[in-house]
């Protein structure tokens, strides 16, 4: 059951070029959110008829909910103007999140703002074996690495231009690690959020290895609660293919459910 909380902006700060951390006093939501769930935000400053914008939860702790977002369009541009003390209506907790009792080494794979739910996940996993694989075009797309480090999560980086970590895609360091785990016969579990290409690459690897893969999908949304069917993703469940609602049946899907 979701609720619509009147939150108050506590902190609003840069998280890299074009990225922002938004910390909201939202005690009701903070108490119930689980990693991989998202919230639906009514952006102050947009016209009163504007649709809400969905954001994953970067952190939920001590009465506060933190979002990590990228300014990409008019909604996020308006959001970037809210100030500490401003009221923000936030709907949540929405969708199904990640499982938080992995059966193997937790491997988190993120791209861009896709690291947001992975941070909340890492925090709840509290698993010293957890590794974050993160990719971006340049080092400017690598976000919140210090926050992962503070959780004791090992971080392996790749950038297309080689400005940080390995040069190339994040699948480079990931495949290296997978090879190592396979060689040692260790079980692992994949968690990913980011651009569709990355999600598919990770899902393929989970399926090929027969390891669990948890894929968080980013689909344009309207209601955020399953009421409008705007946000579908083709999935196979119990042998049947149908259009699942990402906001309700997802945003986190099992790798084997997804029909690309």
């Amino acid at each position, binding site marked *: 059951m979701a609720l619509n909380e009147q939150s108050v902006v506590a902190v609003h700060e840069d998280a890299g070029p074009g990225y922002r951390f938004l910390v909201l006093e939202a005690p009701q939501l903070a108490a119930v959110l689980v990693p991989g769930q998202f919230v639906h935000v*009514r952006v102050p400053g947009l*016209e*009163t*008829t504007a*649709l809400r914008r969905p954001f994953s939860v970067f952190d939920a702790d001590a009465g506060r909910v933190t979002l990590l977002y990228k300014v990409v369009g008019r909604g996020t541009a308006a959001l970037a103007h809210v100030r500490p003390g401003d009221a923000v209506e936030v709907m949540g907790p929405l969708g199904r999140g990640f499982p938080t009792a992995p059966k193997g080494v937790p491997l988190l794979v993120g791209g861009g703002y896709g690291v947001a739910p992975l941070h909340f996940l890492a925090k709840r996993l509290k698993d010293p074996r957890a590794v974050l694989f993160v990719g971006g075009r340049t080092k400017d797309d690598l976000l919140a690495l210090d926050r992962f480090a503070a959780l004791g999560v090992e971080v392996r980086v790749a950038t297309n231009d080689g400005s940080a970590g390995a040069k190339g895609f994040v699948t480079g360091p990931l495949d290296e690690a997978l090879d190592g785990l396979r060689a040692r016969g260790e079980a692992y579990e994949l968690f990913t959020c980011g651009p569709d290409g990355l999600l598919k690459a990770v899902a393929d690897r989970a399926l090929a290895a027969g390891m669990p893969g948890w894929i968080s999908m980013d689909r344009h949304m*309207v*209601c955020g*609660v399953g009421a*409008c*069917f705007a946000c579908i993703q083709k999935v196979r469940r119990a042998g049947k293919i149908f259009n699942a609602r990402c906001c309700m049946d997802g945003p986190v899907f099992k790798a084997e459910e997804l029909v690309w």
Partner: protein
Amino acid sequence: MVNMAVDLGGLKMRTPVTTASGTFGYGAEYVGMVDYSKLGAVTVKGVRMDPWPGNEMPRHAEVPGGLVNAIGLQGPGVDVFAAHYVRHYTRQVGENAPPLIVNIWGGSVEEYAAVARRITEAVNSVIGALEMNVSCPNVKAGGHTFGQDPKVLYEVVSAVRAATTLPLLVKLAPNVPSIAPYVKACEDAGADALSLINTIPAMVIDIETRRPVLANRTGGLSGRCVHPAAVKLVYDAHNVTKLPILAMGGIYEAKDAIEFFLAGATAVAVGTATFTDPGVIASVHDGLVAYCERHGFTSVAELTGALA
């Protein structure tokens, strides 16, 4: 104390406020965010005989003052709806769950009738009425064609009328030169009430990619921007019929709903506004009560057509 109860063509509503089909799922999705005690009915997403996948993504485009959608009537089919979703609704919403208005559609006159019959036979006391969608702009083989020609409309409404004892609403399209012949067809075929309006056919083009934003190319416009057009259609319909009218189209505050009542509506539905603020339902209800009190109406039913 304002009496908020209304009779919508045989459907007894404890308040004159319901939800617009397609904006409130199967009724349980907004539990926790909407005060269901302020709803006189809940109208659910369009249901047809078999499961229907709907259109490809993207299915929506935000526009100033509204929304263009081309969901394409995705749904699980009448059996899953009747077995699963209706039960889920009553369980989630609880004892005082308002009656459901089940929005139905089909690819043929026979299918419309069959869906109506199946739902009527389900004999579930929470099902309060049927609303025939003959005006969805987003499914080619579907609803719209039945609503474009008064003769075809008469036929399909007659068939559904014969198939159900439930109160029968017919939801009409706004893009007609005159609503009168469509209203007459519904009356003649035995409809109990009218729903006005469905979305207005619309299109949004991304000028950078030079492609329509919606996978379906075109869609239907809803939200605040359609409100003045909807008020006119309700007014026109009320002028030519005694059938009660369920009015919808761009209700964002009580004022918008009150305009509908004065134009001739018996009940109102909140649609697109819910996406932005589920609290609109309660504030429309409360604003109606306050307006009646302030203007000396003891019953909301007195507002219908009450132009000075």
